[in-house]
């Protein structure tokens, strides 16, 4: 295109006869289109469409004294320990725990959590089904899901992480809480006993 234009400009006077015949009302839109596409490409490449998503975390309020601490049933608590190099260990109860090693895949920790939390999980899944089928509306779904998650007999998960574990694992575990509909969980400081436990396994 460009070459053709220069020829017209340079040799226009010599063979003017030929060119005159071709005169038309058409405007050469090429430069404009070039510009339009240039801008289009620029904006397409610089635009950030995916806004970052966020997950909400509620930390337990630090109690001022021992008496304010809530006592929870041991059989309902499950502790997830995060260690170095994506190591994940869980155990149930408080006395004589039997630590089990697992991972963050769908067949690892999630399977355990769903199994332990089946009481809440089955109801939450049934509720989601009815949302998908259109039986209930979203605000109603959220309200009822919140109620189900606060079930007094639901699983309580304590997430404890070693200092050298990475942040991604923490987010992954928090994610599992959402997937398994666990409403009662907390990020807690790890104890020396547990550090020993995770290093031994």
């Amino acid at each position, binding site marked *: 295109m460009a070459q053709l234009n220069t020829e017209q400009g340079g040799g226009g006077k010599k063979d003017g006869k030929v060119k005159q015949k071709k005169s038309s009302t058409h405007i050469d839109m090429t430069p404009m289109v070039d510009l339009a596409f240039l*801008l289009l490409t620029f904006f397409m490449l610089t635009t950030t469409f995916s806004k970052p998503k*966020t997950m909400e975390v509620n930390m337990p309020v630090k109690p001022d004294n021992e008496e304010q601490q809530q006592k929870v049933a041991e059989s309902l608590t499950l502790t997830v320990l*995060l260690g170095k190099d994506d190591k994940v260990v869980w155990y149930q109860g408080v006395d004589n725990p039997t630590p089990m090693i697992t991972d963050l895949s769908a067949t690892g920790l999630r399977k355990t959590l769903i199994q332990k939390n089946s009481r809440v999980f089955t109801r939450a899944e049934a509720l989601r089904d009815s949302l998908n089928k259109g039986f209930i509306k979203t605000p109603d779904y959220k309200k009822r899901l919140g109620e189900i998650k606060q079930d007094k007999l639901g699983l309580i998960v304590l997430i404890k992480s070693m200092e050298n574990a990475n942040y991604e694992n923490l*987010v992954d575990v928090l994610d599992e809480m959402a997937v398994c509909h666990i409403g009662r969980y907390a990020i807690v400081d790890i104890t020396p006993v547990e550090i020993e436990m995770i290093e031994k396994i």
Partner: protein
Amino acid sequence: MPKVSYPRSSPVLDMTPMVDLAFLLVTFFMLTTKFRADEPVVVDTPSSVSEIKLPDIDIMTITISPDGGCFFNIDGQANREQVLMKMGERYNITFTPSEVKRFTVLTSFGLPIADLKRLLPLDEEGRKKISQKGVPMDSTNNQLSDWIRFSRLQNPQFRIAVKGDRETDYKTVKRVIDILQENKVNKFNLITNLEQTN
């Protein structure tokens, strides 16, 4: 060269619809684009299934780089101005009006407040050359805590978002969470990407 007779029918193609479309798209992208802010550190956020969108206003972002540096950012020019003034008073550093103005248009920063004076007069290129190690947050010199406190006094509506890198050690994250809890922030957000699978 011998003259070649071209066929009469012109090879010109009517580009109008294409141009219309191109301009439509240009307009669309121009109006919807929001330029990515120039951050001093690039973090790769972990992914999650959470689909809550991060609000645009009243947001305080604490970015944690992979090597454990902490970067602070709040939105709103008026907020930034007030908070910088208060921090200046607290640490006995006076900022000139032009420095304050520069600060209001910056994004996140990761420097002790004393070094901010050095950063502010610089242009974009100069700012990139200064290596930002993070806002100090150890117990003897806890500037991050002060930034958080003054920001929340200035605007109690602030939602706090923690943006950590995948590779960040839990140690730093825990330190930040502890500082938040010292400031009576028990509810905050973790910035994530949307998970691609399932």
